[in-house]
């Protein structure tokens, strides 16, 4: 049985369609041309500046930085530092995410929302440096110090994102469940949490994007292992190529985790939603 779809495929493309496809192809080609041109020009300028304007020890070029990688890799400090930093992120951001998300859900209760309102504002606007140094001066190198700092810098962002979901809750569903005497607990589990799921995911992604930065910052001041520690040591020894190798490797690692893994998973997880929303 020939459906309309089949027919459409059989009919030859009109001249207009051909023209559009050609145009689109040309656009893609142009875009890639300029993109690659951007990489070449910017990396080239960087390399040129490093060898002609600045001392290449102080401003290493991209080639130098790449050359340092094998040495760092072989030194065995790579695995150790990554493990230290990731453990820190795991523990402190885990706590902060849990608290932040619960607080976000709890903003349905207006008393709780009022109570924590100012703490959210403060958490969003105050710099991570402040918490890092405060935690350090109170607890020294002990774990409480960095847990304190990472927790206070990230929980507000998680809460804000979850609370944004709470504000978008389908009011009619809530009202109906109330009218039919559904218990508060069941309402949370069956209406609120499923509705919030995408917001919680976004909160996780945004929170992580800040958590790794703050973690590295606290390590600069208060640790003897980790990426931040290695960065500080390298910069104190004026080994800027090593400094950039550490910084860029973790930068790429964190971005990959954030954009590729979390974002892709988010999309996969909520594919059903998109179909509904259109």
């Amino acid at each position, binding site marked *: 049985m020939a459906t309309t779809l089949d027919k459409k495929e059989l009919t030859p493309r009109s001249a207009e369609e051909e023209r559009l496809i050609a145009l689109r192809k040309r656009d893609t080609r*142009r*875009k890639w*041309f*300029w*993109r690659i041109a*951007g*990489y070449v*020009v*910017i990396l080239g300028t960087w390399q040129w500046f490093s060898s002609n304007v600045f001392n290449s020890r*102080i401003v290493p070029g991209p080639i130098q930085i790449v050359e340092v990688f094998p040495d760092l890799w072989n030194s065995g400090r790579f695995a150790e530092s990554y493990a230290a930093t990731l453990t820190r992120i795991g523990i402190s951001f885990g706590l902060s995410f849990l608290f932040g998300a619960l607080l976000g859900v709890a*903003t349905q209760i*207006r008393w709780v*929302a*009022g*109570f924590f*309102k*100012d703490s*959210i*504002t*403060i958490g*969003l*606007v*105050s*710099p991570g*440096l*402040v*918490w890092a*140094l*405060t935690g350090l*001066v*109170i607890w020294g190198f002990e774990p409480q110090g960095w847990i304190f700092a990472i927790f206070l810098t990230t929980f*507000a*962002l998680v809460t*804000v994102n979850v609370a*944004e979901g709470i*504000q*978008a809750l389908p009011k009619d569903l*809530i009202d109906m469940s*109330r*009218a039919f*005497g*559904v*218990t*508060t607990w069941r309402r949370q589990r069956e209406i609120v949490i499923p509705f919030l799921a995408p917001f919680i995911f976004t909160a996780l992604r*945004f929170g992580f*994007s*800040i958590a790794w*930065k703050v973690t*590295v*910052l606290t390590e*600069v001041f208060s640790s003897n292992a980790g990426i931040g520690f290695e*960065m*500080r040591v390298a*910069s104190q020894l*004026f080994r*800027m190529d090593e*400094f950039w190798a550490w910084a860029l490797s973790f*930068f790429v690692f964190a*971005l990959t985790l*954030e954009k590729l893994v979390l974002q892709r998973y988010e999309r996969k997880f909520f594919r059903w939603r998109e179909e509904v929303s259109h």
Partner: protein
Amino acid sequence: MATPVGSAPMQGSRLRRAFTSPVTARILFPFAVIAVWYLIYYTIDSRIFPTPVEVLEFMWEEITLTSGVRYSSVATNLYGQFGISILRLTAGFLIATTIGTLLGLAMGLWKSVDAFFHDWVMAILAMPALVWALALSIIFGFGHTAPVLTVILAGVPFVIVNVREGVRNTPKELIDMAKSFEVPQEKITRHVLLPSLMPFFFAGMRYAYSIGWKGLVIAEVFGSQVGMGWTIKFWYDAHRAKGVIGYALFFIIFAVTLEKVVFDPLARRTFKWRPALNAYQLAEGDFGAVSQEGFLLEEDEIDQDIEVTGMEGRSHDG
């Protein structure tokens, strides 16, 4: 526990109602913080950890200039340090806005320029300010250069991304129509392009300013001998917890004041409608760049005892 249909939650006495109101909760918050502070004070065994009273005394001495601490010949006291930081921040911010607007316009108008810079702008946006602070202070040593450059690098991607989005967001039909009615270009720019660009431009500046400030204090720790960042490091190096916490509170007061007294009213006046996207949704960026509008309930709403507030005026994506 099932709530009966139509039960009135405020049957209790006036006192109970007053206690359960969100405003009371908000007032209670600082007291809770002080309570937790004392809890930490009595549980940890630290000789340097101060009580809130000690910190407040320290802050008061700093404000009234009676502490007797003379930081340096350039900036002797709190006000001097703040002044230098604000000057640096403003300089960096102005440069970042200029560069960001030009580049953002170019990227919004021409696809080739956009393809050329896009990945690099995103990379700079996601780079921690700490990396700039450390690298630049090694390159330029102590002085104004490293802190100001850190502000620029931390802030400029936010301006670029927002201005670009603003240009793209301009309704094309309006421009087409204006053109077909032979409206002069200058008028199109003034009445179509600028109004639709403004909210985005403003959002970009706001993020650039607050992110720039967070970067600045880090840069001042490593690449400067004056400024707010340097001052908190000074107290940290001196192992005076009350100094660190006192200055931390100064930072927070400054940041909150900036946000509530300067940016919020400006934002309300500059554009009545919010841009559909904030910098975060475009490219997940840095601390606190998420808009706080629409979060929780506004003060005047809190006073009302309506159980569910309406959703009017709250824009959401999708």
